């Protein structure tokens, strides 16, 4: 390779780098920074004593959608079974499953507000996936909470799994979906979800 060609390449590479930095500052955020920013937003909502529960839930939903990729999370939860669902079934599945998660985890998150969250470190998983390890420190104990994130199409880190005390949410749901889909059709699974959402509301 001639020096001229090399120079040219460098110019191009630098040009691209500069463009990337200038155009998309979001990409600069590390997984840990991203998770920390979102978790702090959650804490802010929880600590705001003047907000009504309904308002808090609404705000948490907005943060959840910002922080998580519901489709990616669902794919992980379903594993290979994702392919068994038709496009239409997936469209039904996603919001129903999100409602189940929102209700249960919303309840749990709203139940506490004053724990200290310590952000420990990032551990690479594979490719574009990283685990951000945090701890919730209470009076009597520490609960490890790890967020697994991936880089999405637009280069933003999104969560697709939470591991609380070594129990992965994704893997836990996958074991349930596997079991259910071994005996039931995808439509029946969607019915089970629908019933769950209804039960939770009552």
């Amino acid at each position: 390779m001639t020096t001229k060609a090399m120079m040219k390449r460098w110019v191009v590479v630098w040009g691209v780098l500069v463009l990337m930095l200038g155009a998309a500052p979001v990409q600069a955020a590390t997984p840990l920074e991203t998770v920390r920013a979102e978790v702090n937003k959650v804490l802010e909502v929880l600590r705001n004593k003047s907000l009504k529960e309904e308002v808090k839930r609404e705000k948490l939903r907005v943060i959840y959608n910002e922080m998580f990729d519901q489709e990616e999370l669902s794919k992980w939860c379903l594993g290979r079974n994702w392919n068994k669902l038709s496009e239409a079934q997936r469209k039904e599945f996603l919001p129903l499953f999100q409602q189940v998660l929102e209700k249960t985890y919303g309840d749990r998150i709203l139940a506490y507000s004053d724990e200290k969250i310590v952000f420990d470190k990032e551990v690479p998983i594979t490719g574009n996936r990283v685990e951000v390890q945090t701890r919730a420190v209470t009076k009597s104990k520490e609960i490890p909470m790890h967020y697994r994130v991936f880089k999405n199409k637009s280069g933003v880190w999104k969560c697709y799994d939470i591991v609380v005390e070594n129990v992965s949410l994704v893997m836990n749901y996958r074991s349930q979906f596997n079991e259910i889909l071994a005996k039931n059709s995808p439509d029946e699974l969607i019915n089970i979800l629908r019933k769950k959402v209804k039960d939770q509301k009552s």
Partner: protein
Amino acid sequence: MRRLLCVLALSACVLAGFAPGAHASSAAVPTGEATPAAASDALSAPPATSEPAVQEKEPEKPAAPEDKAEGDSEAGEDDFDYDMEDVPAAEQVTIADPWEPFNRAMFTFNDRLYFWVLKPVAEGYSAVVPEPARVSVGNFFSNLRAPIRFLNCVLQANLIGASTELFRFMLNSTIGVAGLFDPAGGEEIGLLRQDEDFGQTLGAYGLGQGFYIVWPFFGPSSPRDTVGMVGDFFSYPISYLDPWYVWTAVRGYQAINDTSLQIGDYEAIKDAALDPYISIRNAYIQYRQKKVEERGATIPKSEPDVPGAGTPARGVGPEAAPQQ
């Protein structure tokens, strides 16, 4: 006699029963300590600790993922083609469940026991006894369990863990007023509790879980962890209380106290699940598996390294995953 049975039920339920699940969600336990500064603490603390930690880990990382990670910034888009093969099925931990009908019956039994007996009693108890007192009672029993943890650290050749437990026991039994407080675990001293038990020791020796069992009163278990439970029983001083009904009463009280500190955890897990039996079975094996994998002492800050979350769970190949 009926009362005795009740107490026994109570004790057992929390002893082992809901423990793994309950732990998993203990984050839900509200604390009274309001720290408005917590967020900023969290903000300021990590950079110092997290950076070096990441660097230390560097050499252990397999080369391939690293390369990928580097190329990531350009890869972004084409990388995203979702391929189900990509899902690390290897991480999926499963367990055989040949006793499922029996187990489901026992699961229902324990569930009733919790909602009909244990929970109401624990709620009444926590209405009378303030939380700090209950935390202290929990510390007291935890301190008495030190022999279990110490022995199992030794059996796993974890000498740092064993000496940590020894010092913890000495400090907490004296300065900690017979174990009511946990000064050793505080930030200044930083001797954290080493959660080791006989089931984990057997696991560390390479013994697998075998299959899933739900015991009445005792909850989720396996042949391995059942043997472990017997070992734990004999290394827990309370077990030697005489006559037997004193032992039972103390264990029952311990169960009520423990439950009072985690009311709501089991409910939350159940509520999140589409099939609570499967959910708890899975939580149990995930939790126990990681416990066995995380060998070595639990040291503050540097945290038990969960070695690259993507590494295959021991004894579970990628091909073993989809069935179950």
